[in-house]
């Protein structure tokens, strides 16, 4: 499930520079951060480095080591980059500190919706939202006179029309790579039908009519995808778009900027974004809202935490956002959305709105079980019902080991 983790993990460090050009204060405490490695984090940690004495570690596989590193005494990193699910082990283990005091002291410029609150306490500062939404080839849609789909039934109709026109061989792209990606596709579609994946008592809740419908819709979509869809991750779909091989995909907002990058893309200006399609007409967009943000380690001195918080805020200030506005859907004041951010913003502000991806251990376990078991349905080894039963069994075994199910 986690092979995006091994083979292609890129680890590289931006060494702290002594130039303090754009930083409001001079940092004298040596600080380290551990975050994911995508564009938005490169921009944010780059801006943090301007304060001096700062070393950033950007690693797409940061989640496998973050809890252990923050659990050390003292913590190996001062600043962490997290998202909905990766913050869970840090909060559960008591490894990050509440930020209420620091926000009161230094956070005057933060927007209220940037504050991630758990049980009333501010535990993280969000810098951006991310979501999967519909990207499509506007030129093909205009030429064929197609309306932009708002439900998945319409996606299938549009795909059929595009296939018949012969504009592209495979109208749809999808992040269906076995493992985490395929699990995420299921979560998106399922939550569009039924928001409950795990019951309050920790038992699985996906083996039902909504589960079957989800699998059947996903299978129907794959008929319009490249046959190697079970190896297709976000980068593959992005490249399919850039090379003009697909006409539609439900893809991460953070991939939008690459579509208009003339160095990589052959379809500059031809791709547009819309809200993620709903699973049923009138329903919420069948996708989940994610946030990425910063946390401060618990196992460091208060002085270090104070310096770390100030440096972190310098990394996610208005100055950084205006310089890198196309890297993400920023939550930071001063952000002006670019052309390709429209679809993601439409998804995030839709009524009814798409749910936030649940930050719970059980959801992580469920996502893992889905990632392990779903491919058997797509390769034809198991029926939809058998697949969901296998997911249930996989989840139950893992949940018992994790102590969340008796």
């Amino acid at each position, binding site marked *: *499930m986690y092979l995006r983790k*091994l*083979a292609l993990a890129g680890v590289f460090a931006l060494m702290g520079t002594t130039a303090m050009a754009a930083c409001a204060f001079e940092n004298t405490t040596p600080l380290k951060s551990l975050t994911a490695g995508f564009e938005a984090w490169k921009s944010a940690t780059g801006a943090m480095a301007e304060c001096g004495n700062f070393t950033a570690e950007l690693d797409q596989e940061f*989640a496998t080591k973050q*809890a252990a590193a923050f659990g050390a005494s003292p913590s190996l990193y001062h600043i962490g980059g997290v998202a*909905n*699910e*990766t913050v*869970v*082990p840090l909060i*559960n*283990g*008591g490894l990050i500190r509440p930020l209420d005091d620091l926000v009161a002291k230094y956070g005057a410029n933060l927007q*209220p*919706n*940037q*504050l*991630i*609150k*758990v049980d*009333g306490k501010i535990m993280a500062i*969000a810098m951006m*939202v991310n979501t999967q939404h519909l990207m499509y080839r506007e030129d093909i849609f205009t030429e064929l006179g197609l309306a932009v789909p708002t439900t998945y039934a319409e996606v299938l109709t549009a795909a059929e029309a595009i296939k018949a026109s012969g504009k592209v061989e495979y109208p749809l792209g999808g992040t269906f*790579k*076995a*493992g*985490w990606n*395929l699990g995420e596709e299921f979560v998106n579609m399922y939550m569009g039908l039924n928001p409950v994946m795990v019951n*309050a008592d*920790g038992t699985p809740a996906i083996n039902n009519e909504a589960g079957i419908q989800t699998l059947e819709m996903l299978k129907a979509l794959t008929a319009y995808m490249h*046959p*190697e*869809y*079970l*190896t297709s991750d976000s980068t593959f779909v992005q490249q399919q778009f850039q090379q003009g091989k697909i006409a539609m995909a439900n893809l991460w907002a953070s991939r939008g900027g690459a579509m208009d990058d003339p160095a990589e893309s052959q379809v500059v200006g031809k791709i547009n974004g819309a809200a993620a399609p709903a699973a049923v007409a009138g329903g919420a967009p069948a996708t989940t*809202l994610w946030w990425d943000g910063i946390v401060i380690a*618990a196992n460091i001195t208060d002085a270090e935490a104070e310096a770390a918080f100030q440096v972190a805020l310098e990394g996610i200030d208005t100055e950084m956002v205006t310089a890198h506005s196309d890297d993400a859907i920023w*939550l930071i004041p001063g952000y002006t959305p670019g052309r390709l951010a429209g679809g993601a*913003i439409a998804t*995030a*502000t839709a009524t009814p709105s798409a749910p*936030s991806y649940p*930050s*719970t*251990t*059980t959801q*992580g*376990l469920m*996502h893992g079980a889905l990632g*392990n078991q779903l*491919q058997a349905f*797509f*390769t034809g080894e*198991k029926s939809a019902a*058998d697949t969901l039963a*296998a997911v249930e069994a996989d989840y139950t075994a893992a949940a*018992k*080991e994790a*102590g*969340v199910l008796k």
Partner: protein
Amino acid sequence: MKTRTFAAFVAPSLVMMLIFIAAPLLYVFGQSFYLTTPVTEQMTVETCTPGFLTQNCTQETKSLPKLDEAGRIVTQTQFVGFGSYRAIIEPAKAWAAISTFDYRALMAIDFWRALRFTLMFTFVTLPLVLLVGLGVALAVNNTARTLRGPVIFVSLLPFIITPVIGALAIRWLFVSDGLLNNGLEWMLGHPVSMFSQGWTIEILMMFYRVWHVAPFAFIILYAGLQTLNHDALEAAMIDGASRWQRLRYVIVPHLMPLIIFVTLIHLMDAYRVFDEVVGFRAEAHVISLQYLTYDFLIPDSTGNRSISRAAASSMLTMVGILILLIPLLRRTWAQHRGSR
């Protein structure tokens, strides 16, 4: 060599092996019988996360681990016997499938699916590696002396490449818009997708492994050919033995100990097949036993992992290798005693 001198030479490596191999192995063996879980309690927590303009606050009932005074997660460890092994092998389900000859039901269990592929991979690649290795060794042995150096160097290249890199290279050549895949499509005149079904991926994996490991067999067997007794070969020729008969009755028996050595090493390596699954992104269609262990061990994004099942799975892999090696080890042992 005197016993004392022998012991002095061997001791450092023995100590290293005890510390770095035997001790972890015993530890993992012990671990596979225990299950450590955090103590959790149900709590309802309000969580606020950002939408784009507003904040979404939800009440969620979560299972949260208890923390002790020092802020560490409280865990409890219990003896579960063969529980983790049962969770992997699923004996009841497997037996039901076997007794009703339901192949699909058996393959629906990850362990058996992985075992099926691992065994097939091992036993298909073994003879191919030996044949290709022996063929190249004989060919090099018969080329002109001046050419041998460069030929040996070129033949060894696949073995030098890092396995994951080699697997990735093969994947990129055969993926949908890869170079060789486009060539195949041009030749056959219809679209080819090597990575959209299990059997083509398996063929590519075996092809890759043979390409990668055959040089090892080659260099060992080539070294063996240098010690061949030329009197025996000439005697065979005078007796009128054909090329094939000389190979069958003189060369192969001479190389037999080396062939067994290569077989031994290859069985151990092939049974632990892993790089190919990762490099080819094959986990949707094909998994191996070693991949299964890895999958249990790697934490998911919320930090959960199955240490006990990973330990049990790696023990099962080791047992499998031992079973495969027993006939060969017995044979080597018998020869060793015979030669004393």
